């Protein structure tokens, strides 16, 4: 315990003798009186002596305690532990000041941001003290030290603090601690080491901090800059589109709202995407994430940037009241139906598939879905390249060139639906698997059925009810699924190399009915049935199952969430971008990014960057055309301003090191006990009166 006026304690120690002096001075001078009955006085005194001795001791004790408490109160005791780091006087050693510059430090309270308070606190620790060398680490996603080692250039450190500003990044606590460890290790051995951490000690960042890399003898001082009773925060945590984003089709937009306040809030969000807007409104309970949803109708295909903004929201952290997102709007899908069957409308497997893929013909003059029939013997490469989904049905024996072409397209992101009805299809699937190599791990191996085991009247034994195409069709499958009968197709055998979860449906003979497996950037689905020999085309399940399956196989890369600012990221460009030549990355202001790297990775182009830039939409352009876009935003975890319990820092995380926790934002919090001490002093005096009264009665 420390004192504001410690010299008063010495005065108080001297004042302890005061009651004795007062007692002697105020003791009544006895009046001499001859008395014949002294024997009775002596008798009475003897009887009362023990009692009054107790009274005298109690009175002396209470009176002394009152004086001591009075001196203590005037000395103004400061509660809490003594700071480990002195900001004045001579000190010999190394000091590292770690200033948190994460996004949460920009939270404003009482008209001042936590970072501004932190700068003022940090500046105190980088002032000149004889014998001291110091360094400053401004830490966010990456820690940045002013010097490589401790320095006596305090002016430069002060300038660095003045120039620092909060970043829309999370705090990588461990990287910062490791950096501080490196700097402290450069000090003179056996000298005093001090680490001052100025932060808001946000729980999401500091809960997993590990101080074990620091040297054992380091003195850690935590300076919190968060005042008590900080204003609550409402934040947009994510904004995204769900499902296939397609031109001319309504897109479902979802916005996640985090309510980190203590009350229920009615939130309104304005969403703009290109020239489309929508307004989302909803109630957000405290302490949970709420998803608000709405729809927009994109009128053109391509990459567009969007922004979700909270309306009339006044909270601690303004930076998370809006969030950028990107929509990659695709044109209506084109299906390439590769089959040997005639295009004449008659009951055939390919006819059933064509009608199921495009149940309604497109309106004239408007873009819409359509099916292009392709003869596998004479493939139209342009039609294949334009197709969004490849559908193979009764293709016959595929040539190796055709297999290589199809496999390459799938690996770049195309979807492929193979309806395996004939024994030759087993050979084709094996050829595709061989061509795909390690990118394609089928869970089963399809084989031609044995002659003595005819595949007839098979029914579905089980299916994955939580995955497409059955996920949204649970009721219909329960009603109709049991009546489906299948014939034809291939027998199958389980392979250990594949994932059993890729088998979505199984027949009554334990052969695979539907298999969906990823292959490179694309997906391959195998429907193991001869549709002409099955009653599926005649059932109400045909169209929804095929639609759901096609939806799963179509590309969904445009729904990626925003990348976190300051974090490294990597993203494949769309499969149709085959080379990084003539590609460039521009930031939200249209300025070309020099630190972005575009490299060839197999058949795809990889965009990677060591640190994502400030919030906004970044575009990969080829000339004036945008081939890809990506949004960056502050990490959602930074919006939760809840702080870590200081006790956790001091005990569990500090691992037994000398630590001190101080909340600089709550000054003066510690010298307020003198009033209670005065009350105790008054209590002693009242107690003295009470003792006298008690013994008198």
């Amino acid at each position: 315990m420390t004192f504001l006026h410690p010299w008063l304690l010495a005065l108080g120690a001297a004042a302890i003798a005061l009651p004795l002096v007062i007692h002697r001075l105020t003791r009544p001078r006895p009046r001499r009186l001859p008395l014949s009955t002294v024997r009775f006085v002596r008798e009475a005194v003897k009887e009362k002596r023990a009692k009054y001795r107790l009274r005298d001791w109690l009175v002396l004790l209470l009176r002394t305690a009152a004086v001591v408490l009075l001196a203590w109160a005037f000395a103004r005791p400061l509660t809490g532990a003594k700071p480990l780091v002195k900001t004045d006087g001579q000190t010999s050693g190394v000091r590292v000041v770690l200033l948190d510059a994460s996004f949460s430090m920009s939270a404003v309270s009482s008209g001042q941001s936590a970072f501004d308070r932190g700068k003022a606190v940090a500046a105190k620790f980088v002032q000149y003290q004889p014998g001291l060398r110091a360094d400053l680490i401004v830490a966010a996603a990456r820690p940045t030290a002013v010097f490589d080692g401790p320095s006596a250039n305090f002016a430069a450190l002060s300038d660095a603090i003045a120039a620092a500003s909060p970043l829309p990044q999370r705090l990588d606590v461990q990287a910062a601690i490791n950096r501080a460890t490196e700097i402290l290790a450069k000090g003179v051995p056996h000298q005093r080491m001090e680490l001052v951490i100025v932060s808001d000690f946000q729980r999401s960042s500091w809960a997993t901090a590990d101080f074990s890399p620091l040297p054992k003898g380091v003195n850690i001082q935590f300076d919190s800059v968060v005042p008590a009773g900080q204003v609550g925060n409402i934040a947009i945590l994510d904004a995204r589109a769900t499902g296939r984003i397609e031109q001319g089709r309504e897109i479902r937009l979802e916005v996640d709202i985090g309510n980190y306040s203590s009350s229920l809030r009615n939130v309104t969000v304005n969403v703009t995407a290109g020239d489309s807007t929508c307004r989302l409104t909803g109630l957000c309970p405290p302490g949970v994430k709420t998803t608000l949803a709405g729809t927009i109708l994109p009128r053109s295909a391509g990459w567009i940037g969007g922004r979700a903004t909270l309306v009339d929201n006044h909270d601690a952290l303004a930076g998370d009241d809006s969030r950028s997102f990107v929509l990659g709007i695709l044109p209506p899908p084109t299906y390439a139906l590769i089959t040997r069957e005639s295009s004449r409308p008659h009951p055939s497997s390919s006819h059933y598939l064509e009608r199921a893929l495009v149940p309604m013909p497109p309106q004239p003059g408007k873009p819409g879905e359509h099916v292009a029939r392709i003869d596998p013997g004479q493939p139209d490469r342009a039609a294949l390249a334009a197709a969004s989904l490849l559908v193979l049905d009764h293709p016959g024996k595929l040539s190796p060139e055709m297999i290589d072409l199809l496999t390459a397209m799938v690996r770049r992101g195309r979807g492929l639906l193979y309806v395996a009805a004939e024994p030759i299809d087993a050979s084709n699937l094996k050829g595709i698997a061989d061509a795909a190599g390690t990118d394609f791990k089928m869970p089963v191996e399809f084989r031609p059925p044995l002659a003595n085991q005819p595949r007839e009247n098979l029914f579905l034994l089980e299916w994955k009810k939580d995955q497409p195409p059955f996920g949204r069709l649970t009721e219909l499958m329960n009603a109709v699924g049991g009546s489906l009968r299948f014939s034809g197709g291939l027998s199958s055998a389980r392979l250990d190399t594949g994932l059993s979860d890729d088998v979505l449906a199984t027949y009554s003979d334990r052969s695979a009915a539907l298999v969906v497996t990823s292959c490179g950037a694309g997906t391959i689905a195998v429907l193991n049935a001869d549709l002409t020999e099955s009653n599926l085309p005649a059932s109400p399940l045909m169209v929804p199952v095929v639609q759901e399956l096609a939806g799963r196989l179509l590309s969904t890369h445009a729904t990626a969430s925003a990348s976190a600012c300051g974090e490294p990221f990597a993203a494949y460009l769309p499969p149709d971008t085959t080379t990084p030549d003539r590609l460039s990355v521009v930031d939200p202001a249209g300025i070309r990014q020099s630190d972005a790297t575009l490299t060839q990775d197999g058949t795809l182009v990889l965009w990677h960057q060591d640190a994502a830039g400030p919030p906004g939409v970044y575009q990969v352009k080829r000339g004036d055309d945008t081939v890809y876009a990506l949004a960056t935003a502050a990490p959602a975890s930074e919006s939760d301003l809840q702080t870590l319990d200081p006790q956790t820092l001091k005990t569990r995380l500090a691992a037994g090191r000398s630590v001190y926790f101080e909340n600089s934002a709550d000054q003066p919090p510690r010298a307020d006990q003198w009033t209670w001490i005065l009350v105790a002093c008054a209590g002693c005096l009242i107690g003295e009166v009470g003792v006298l009264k008690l013994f008198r009665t």
Partner: protein
Amino acid sequence: MSDTAIAETTARPHSKYLNLAALSALAHLRFATRYRIEGSYSGRHRSRQRGGSAEFVDFREYAPGEDLRRIDWKVLGRTDRPYVRLYQDETNLLCTMLVDASRSMLYAGQRQRPEESKLRYVQYLATAMSHVIGSQRDQVGLAVAAGGLLDFFPPAAAPMHLWRLQRMLETLDDRKAPPQTDLAGALRAAFDRLSRRGVLVVMSDFLVDDLEAVFANVRLFRHRRWEVVIMHLIHPEEERLPLGAAYRFEGMEDDGTINCTPADVARGYEQAFEAHAAMVRALALAAGCDHRRVLTSTPYLQTLGGFLVERSA
């Protein structure tokens, strides 16, 4: 009393503690005893002896060998049985006043004025009582007790004796009393010197170490058929301690000093003092003595008057 003695007495000044004008109001009262006494001369008090010349008391059947002159012939004639007439013999009173002159009797309250001391009160009271007894031709003696028996005047009725006795009472406070009171020893010494039974009046504050020993000697007198009157003298300021913050009480008989705040011990003191007074009373009554609690705040004439009135009745 001879004419010479009367002349000598009238020539000498009487005691300063003798207020004849005040005592004239008590002239009609006489010191009466409760029991029959044994006197030297004929007087107004009933004697233990029964003779033939005095007041008739009763008849008793004649016993052979008795003086035939005492037979009541008239009764014999009427009853044919011899009866002897009994008469009460009257004699004078032998009263001995045993006065405590110890240092504790000098206590005069907070103001410490000698005229308010217990000894001064005894001087007035004993002088007045000796005058009353002497004026009714009874014999009065004086024993002065302090460390032991300091002075002793056997009972006598001569005016000169009275003058000397009162003179001794007058000079009591001039004596230097020994530090310790030995009232029991004084009683024992007086008992040894007094051969004829009479009345013993003890005037003391009874502030002694061994109260039992005192009353053991009182009981000696009672065994010899003495009438004993215990006058327990109490100063009003002895009953309760004085008010004030702190006092240093100094014992008057070399019993040390003690510092205390009276308020702290007042209750205990009062209880102890009352217990002492009750003990004196109980021991006196148990020994068959007449006990009187005499507060020195009461005028001595009132005390004496009350005593005599009670006795006369």
